């Protein structure tokens, strides 16, 4: 991991009005890894994600993606990196006037010159990969269940074969089986497509099962990051409560048995 990180955030400060949400936060994401970001609800995880992809203005600090700093880059450079990532928003953010397949085709239509047949074929393949059956590809977002919305949104995020995907709580609101499938899916995609994944999650199972590294966001800073063993060894009270609280003891115990 001594190559240059794919995402590098240094001393990032972001806030609204009189509230500082991120306070001199630094974080690296390396090529090919799945990074899980955890933190309290309302702690600023989505804000961090939105600042990295440039939807929120930062007050101070430096963010570079693909070794390009947006502050100094030209507009073409910025645009060219924008199509190298895909984003799965917390609420899915599918376009409500397009059906599921058209949602996936939309970025392809904008960025790639493809025949209609190929575009349709690839969109169906992508939807198949995330587990949406062909009968459901004609449905509109309002007709999809929560889990299907997340899957369709993931398919859209993957439409251009990005190198990097941002996932904001991809498994929240899914039943444990669907969440497990989703984890497996993300891992398969990461292996087959060589993805780098930046994932905000509250799902301990995902953290154990698929994340190569975990970063913990507390009080506007990353207080600890590293593989799960490092996090479990951390003595910070919030981290202890999160990973060793009553609700999570079961999972931790199982992990303890399997790793020893």
């Amino acid at each position, binding site marked *: 991991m001594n190559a240059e990180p794919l995402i590098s955030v240094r001393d990032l400060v972001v806030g609204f009005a009189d509230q500082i949400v991120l306070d001199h936060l630094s974080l690296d994401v390396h090529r090919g890894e799945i990074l899980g970001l955890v933190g309290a609800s309302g702690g600023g995880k989505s804000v961090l994600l939105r600042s990295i992809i440039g939807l929120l203005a930062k007050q101070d600090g430096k963010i570079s993606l693909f070794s390009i700093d947006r502050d100094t880059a030209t507009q073409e450079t910025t645009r060219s990196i924008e199509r190298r990532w895909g984003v799965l928003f917390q609420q899915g953010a599918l376009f409500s006037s397009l059906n599921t397949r058209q949602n996936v085709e939309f970025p392809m239509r904008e960025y790639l*010159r493809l025949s209609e047949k190929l575009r349709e074929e690839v969109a*169906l*393949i992508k939807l198949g*990969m995330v587990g949406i059956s062909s009968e459901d590809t004609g449905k509109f977002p309002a007709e999809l269940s929560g889990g299907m919305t997340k899957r369709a949104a993931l398919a859209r995020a993957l439409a251009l074969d990005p190198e990097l995907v941002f996932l904001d709580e991809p498994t929240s609101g899914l039943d444990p089986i669907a969440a497990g499938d989703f984890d497996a899916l993300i891992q398969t995609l990461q292996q087959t*497509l060589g993805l780098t994944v930046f994932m905000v999650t509250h799902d301990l199972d995902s953290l154990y099962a698929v994340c190569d590294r975990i970063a913990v966001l507390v009080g506007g800073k990353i207080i600890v990051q590293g593989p799960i063993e490092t996090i479990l060894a951390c003595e910070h009270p919030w981290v202890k409560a999160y990973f060793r609280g009553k609700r999570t003891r079961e999972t931790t115990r199982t992990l303890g048995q399997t790793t020893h």
Partner: protein
Amino acid sequence: MQPLESAASGRDLDITLSGSWTAPHARVLEPLVEAAVREARGRGVRLDMHAVTEIDTFGACLLERLARGSSPGIETQAFGVPERMRGLLAEVGRVGREAQPLPPKKKSSFAGIESIGRATVDAGRDLVVFVEMLGELSDALLRVLRDPRRLRPISIVYQLDRVGLQAIPIIFLITFLIGGIISQQGIFHFRRFGAGDYAVDLVGILVLREIGVLIVAIMVAGRSGSSYTAELGSMKMREEIDALYTMGLDPVEVLLLPRVVALICALPALTFFGSISALFGGGLVEWLYGGMSPAIYVERLKDAVSVTHFEVGIIKAPFMALVIGIVACSEGLRVKGSAESLGLQTTTSVVKSIFLVVVLDGLFAMFFAGIGM
């Protein structure tokens, strides 16, 4: 070297692939694949992939087409597949086998006739929806009147402020200008046969009987009807209306009734102010352009119009308000899940309510002519 080269060897076809099989090259690759599929029909295919440098889902999809399309039943053998591409190819192959092709879109040769039929049915259904909504509103009104604690005065006053008070400046301005324009046209054309002064009669009767209420109703349909539709529509989209139902509340009573009641109260008042403002506009033009002093204008106006003219105009206002309110609310509740349908219903609401307002005005004209008012 071409990215796809084929050579026949005996009964089989050897296909050698090379270079980048990625999205930016798809336009070049696709015709080559199509040609190879035709060439390979009925033959065994051996794919040599060792020279492929990179591949993504788009390339994998084309290869899948090649492998499947060439020869049903006969295995396509691929060799020299670089290790790192295996996972992707296997995944695309798996999904491709499971996914059924989309059913072809049905195309009717009677599409035109079909759409006429559908439009007719829709128009009939619109009428039913209108009557239904009228019934539901009356029902809610009766319930509220029997139990006045359920009246929502705050909500009604808030809506009155939005559709009434806040509309006054723009209504004043528009009706003032229209009164002036009618007056100017009257003076200009009547003068030619020496009847310039009759422009006052024109302004007075036209404004009080027709134009005042019509202009105000159309403005309100565009201004408040559209916002009712958009509000209710977006509440529908975000399941807020369903949430009301589950709390045991009737959306008609909570949301629609205060809005419609506010419209019914506001429109006559706005019509009154609008008509006055139009008469002022007419008087100003008479004075500046026609050279008639304000005192004479008022005198002539008194002779020309009677309370009947005013009554004919103002009596129509609450009915028009009811039509606008019902159309706006029922269109709002028809919004489906998409942003597009919200826009569509809002447009429909405005177009439909303006149309109905004009039709209603015509019916009233016939009615008043019949009873001699």
